[in-house]
């Protein structure tokens, strides 16, 4: 049980007073970020990332920095549930399914029960996700040590094809968004030849586009513009959360153990695949509705309908970090920002991280356990406080968030050009969101663009330009085949539906988005 030993080493790292304080600070900041419109997990972490630059240079500081940032992530995950239940505004995409039963529960005056079950299920889901990371990630990392450039490119290909295959809307929009990310990542000096690319003579473009700016613009500014469209007025229900309600709900929760376990499994499986948290929460809600005895009551405000999506979303959100630390492939935009942070601090995520920076990795994993415990305590005790933040009028909150976004963009490279770029990405985010272009693939492509390109070029060098290298052995062959299967999944599933419709005479079931 080498893992247990390493984990205890990790606890020793994470359990310093300074790190515990950072956990509390991170969770509280994260919940605030998750509660506020326009500040989700991804761009909240992006804005606060520059603050860790100096911290990460001190000895052991990289671990403290990742603890702070990952706790912001947990906090944002928890915070999304508060707005969904009290205000019917999903703070994060994966909280949408939580509104189905969470908001009706709150309207029935059972907001306390809804919140408690949401937080507890989130905690359970995250715990299962962390257990998965603890025991599976060393194995994945050891396995990945055998990877060469073609295998790494295969993993990237799989990641991006998964986005196309799992997207709900037009697959071409996913491809367009992703390729725009790759194109923006290519701008600047080519790392291999040192040649200038796509700068069109503008000196400002030499450095290329930073994904942090894109995240702040697309998710932050874009989101605010979308929210203001409706002339925002929060109409929320009051939240009272006392120990009595918490204990009562806790007594009720064990009844839904089957739903919880099913949701956690769905979440973990989907979380490893990129962009999995949102589909996981919907899938888990659908499954619970089908298999529960009170299935027909779903949507009218039942606790089980909150348990299912919340458990799945957190299990997925947590296990999204598994491919990030073991392979260097983030499973969600927020994981992508965390990955970017690691790169900036001088760490190369991937299989070698486990052998070269064992302290850091296990400190991070230990902090996932502790951070979620801290998170559960903080959210259960501070709900009224966080709900009060939402009652601050939009006329104050909106400009303050915009100022924070501007400051965040500036501090990435101390450059005002980046602030202008942030505005541009904001306008782009608004239009793209309105037309249902997914933004996550673009961010992931911006983060991984250089690595994916390097992998591709090195593979091409190995094979002298022959694409068959991506089928040259069973490992890379499987990865490529899986990737292609996912890429063409929209076409394949339609063909299956047509075939079934002809065979059985039943009309083909089309998924409604």
């Amino acid at each position: 049980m080498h893992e247990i030993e390493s984990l205890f080493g990790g606890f020793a790292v994470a359990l310093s007073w300074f790190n515990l304080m950072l956990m509390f600070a991170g969770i509280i900041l994260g919940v605030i970020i998750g509660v506020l419109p326009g500040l989700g997990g991804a761009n909240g972490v992006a804005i606060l990332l520059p603050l860790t630059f100096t911290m990460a240079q001190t000895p052991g500081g990289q671990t403290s920095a990742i603890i702070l940032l990952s706790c912001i992530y947990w906090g944002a995950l928890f915070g999304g549930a508060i707005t969904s239940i009290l205000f019917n505004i999903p703070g994060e995409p994966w909280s949408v399914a939580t509104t189905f039963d969470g908001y009706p529960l709150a309207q029935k005056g059972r907001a306390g029960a809804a919140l408690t079950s949401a937080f507890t299920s989130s905690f359970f889901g995250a715990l299962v996700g962390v257990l998965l990371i603890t025991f599976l990630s060393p194995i994945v990392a050891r396995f990945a040590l055998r990877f060469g450039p073609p295998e790494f490119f295969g993993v990237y290909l799989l990641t991006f094809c998964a986005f196309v295959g799992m997207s709900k809307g037009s697959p071409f929009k996913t491809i367009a968004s992703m390729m725009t990310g790759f194109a923006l990542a290519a701008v600047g000096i080519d790392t291999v030849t040192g040649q200038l690319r796509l700068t069109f003579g503008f000196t400002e473009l030499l450095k290329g586009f930073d994904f942090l700016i894109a995240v702040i613009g697309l998710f932050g500014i874009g989101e605010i513009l979308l929210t203001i469209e409706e002339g925002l007025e929060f109409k929320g229900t009051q939240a009272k959360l006392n120990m009595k309600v918490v204990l009562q709900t806790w007594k009720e929760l064990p009844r839904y153990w089957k739903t919880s376990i099913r949701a956690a499994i769905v979440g973990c499986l989907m979380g490893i695949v990129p962009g999995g948290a949102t589909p996981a929460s919907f899938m888990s809600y659908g499954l619970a509705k089908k298999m529960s005895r009170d299935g027909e009551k779903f949507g009218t405000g039942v606790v089980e309908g909150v348990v299912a999506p919340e458990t799945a979303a957190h299990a997925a959100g947590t296990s999204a970090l598994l491919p990030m630390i073991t392979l260097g492939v983030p499973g969600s935009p927020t994981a992508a920002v965390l990955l970017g942070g690691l790169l900036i601090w001088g760490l190369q995520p991937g299989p070698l991280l486990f052998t070269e920076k064992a302290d850091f990795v296990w400190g991070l994993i230990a902090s996932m356990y502790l951070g979620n415990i801290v998170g559960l305590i903080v959210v259960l005790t501070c709900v009224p406080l966080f709900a009060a933040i939402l009652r601050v009028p939009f006329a104050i909150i909106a400009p303050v968030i915009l100022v924070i976004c501007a400051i965040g963009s500036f501090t990435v490279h101390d450059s005002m050009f980046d602030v202008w770029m942030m505005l541009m990405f904001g306008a782009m985010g608004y239009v793209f969101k309105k037309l249902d272009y997914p933004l996550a693939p673009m961010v992931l492509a911006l983060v991984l663009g250089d690595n994916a390109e390097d992998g591709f070029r090195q593979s091409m060098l190995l094979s002298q330009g022959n694409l068959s290298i991506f089928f040259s052995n069973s490992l890379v062959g499987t990865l490529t085949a899986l990737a292609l299967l996912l890429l063409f999944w929209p076409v394949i599933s339609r063909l299956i539906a047509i075939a079934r419709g002809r065979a059985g005479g039943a009309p083909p079931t089309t998924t409604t988005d």
Partner: protein
Amino acid sequence: MQQEDRDRRAVGSVRLWESVVAVLLMAFGALIAWDSHRIGSTWGDNGPRAGYFPFYVGLFILVSGTAILYSALRMSPEEGREPFVRWGELRMVLTVFVPSIVYVALIDNPWYPLGIYVPSALFIGAFMRYLGRYGWLTVVAVSVGVMVAFFLMFEIWFQVPLPKGPLETALGFG
């Protein structure tokens, strides 16, 4: 009544905007592919040249833009005629976006850059005054208070210097 009617009017249909964005994407893809081709998108003496990868990225954007345009033109009339955004909504969006541009221009312009703190306070204050209709006292207290807190946090606690202008210089922080 007249105002309300105007607010409900659509600024372009979904079909129109889908097509506009698709055409822009096609142009963007073509530009990427063209520039990559210019710096060399083929196999050089020692492996793929600088434009090798982005050339295909550009082609992919061009192709998917074309596909999006095609499906936009083939949209059903009901779907295609849906308004992309209504006047009232767009006006709200512009009341946020235009001041944001002015705000960034106040921080950064070649003639009289004000630093980040003073424009931020003005920006928050203007929002509170004109959208929130707060009294002057609240406006000044909140906007100045928030920026003083940010100043302490960035310049003193985290030691991250932000752009400063004439006011900060006069106070001896330049």
